[in-house]
């Protein structure tokens, strides 16, 4: 329990570059046991804390923070670890219950459409929740919804048309400048 673990090793202070390895890949994490992954998570967590404190200190003192890509590499390893654990839990729930993943359902939006919304955990039942009642009482049709949807459709058509035009013009210009290119 040493507070200096928040900082890097002494000989790395003031360096221009620190050599380090690459992030953990999913194939390498899948063969490890749950206990190993549990320990690895905290090692990565502590490393990230150390890097972030060093970054803050260097910016405060006006010094160069060496090798800032280490933070992104640690982030990558942690994301991969999270996904591997989610895979394993999803497999277990699928075996036990027959479904996996987070539950959800279709919900009416104030814009006259329907969207698939993932469920959240609440402490209060839905019949006692005022926001649920408000969402259920939204109008499903009407003048405002009709006007909004028609204008949204016009906007989507316009952007799609402009994108297509931009691509066609770009291709035409490329053929003009590079008539002998072998593609398109």
């Amino acid at each position: 329990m040493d507070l200096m673990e928040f900082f890097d090793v002494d000989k790395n202070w003031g360096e221009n570059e620190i050599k380090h390895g690459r992030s953990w890949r999913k194939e390498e994490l899948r063969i490890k046991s749950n206990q190993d992954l549990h320990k690895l998570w905290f090692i990565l967590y502590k490393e990230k804390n150390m890097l972030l404190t060093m970054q803050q200190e260097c910016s405060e003192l006006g010094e160069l923070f060496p090798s800032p890509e280490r933070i992104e590499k640690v982030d990558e390893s942690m994301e991969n670890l999270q996904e591997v654990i989610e895979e394993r839990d999803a497999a277990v729930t699928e075996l036990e219950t027959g479904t996996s993943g987070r539950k959800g359902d279709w919900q009416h939006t104030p814009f006259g459409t329907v969207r698939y919304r993932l469920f959240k955990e609440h402490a209060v039942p839905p019949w006692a929740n005022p926001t649920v009642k408000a969402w259920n009482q939204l109008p499903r049709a009407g003048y405002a919804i009709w006007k909004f949807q028609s204008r949204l459709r016009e906007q989507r058509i316009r952007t799609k048309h402009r994108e297509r035009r931009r691509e066609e013009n770009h291709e035409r210009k490329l053929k003009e400048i590079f008539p002998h290119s072998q593609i398109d």
Partner: protein
Amino acid sequence: MKLSPVLRMCYEYSNFPKAYIEKAMFKGGKRETAGLAGIKIRKKKKWHYGVSRPWEEENQQENRPGVHHPKVFLEPIKEWKVMRGDLVEVLVGKDKGKQGHVNYIVKQRNWVFVDGLHCKYEYITQETGLKPTMVKKELPLCVVNDVALVDPSDNKPTEIQWRFTEEGERVRVSTRTGRIIPLASMVHETKDYKSKSTYKEQPKDTTAEDLEVISYKPNVKTFEQDIMDSMGIVETKKPAKTWWY
């Protein structure tokens, strides 16, 4: 996490993760404001690539807010044939007919820099020094027109095709003579190591032997349950009732 082919091939030498490169580019948006209140920096849609890499100072300055560059029309290339370290002949300019090795590639501009050839001379004043010194700088060459790979059998420029050998290996073959042109050893070089076998292990790295150890035994327990069992934690409290909606 799959990298797009362009990004992967350009930055293989740096070995940087994609998230780090993307953070260095495309700044600006609702939250980024200049020093004075009220001035908003618009989100950059197109990055202007140059001689230096996007995370380096020179390229960041070329892409500072308010600076606009004319549109770059790139000839679309299906497969890149010129790699780092290849022997290549220059077909334009003062050094026409000379051969040299490629030491730097910028795929976003179809540029190739040959070691020592197609250069310009310029004076650079050092901040501490008094007299300006003359420096030789390589100029970019277009991959399609200005440069051609050299056939090692007769040392002349050729056109190249990617083909498969009998074993199934993908190699470059010159269309004139049919000789295979091998990749230089510099292709696998990165900032961290010259080749994978010569990499020096750092104190915080996991070694290759530790990576291959298989410690996972499949069981029908969730991650939480497995950890609780191995630590000897027994939960007797009942969780409070919650609703999912």
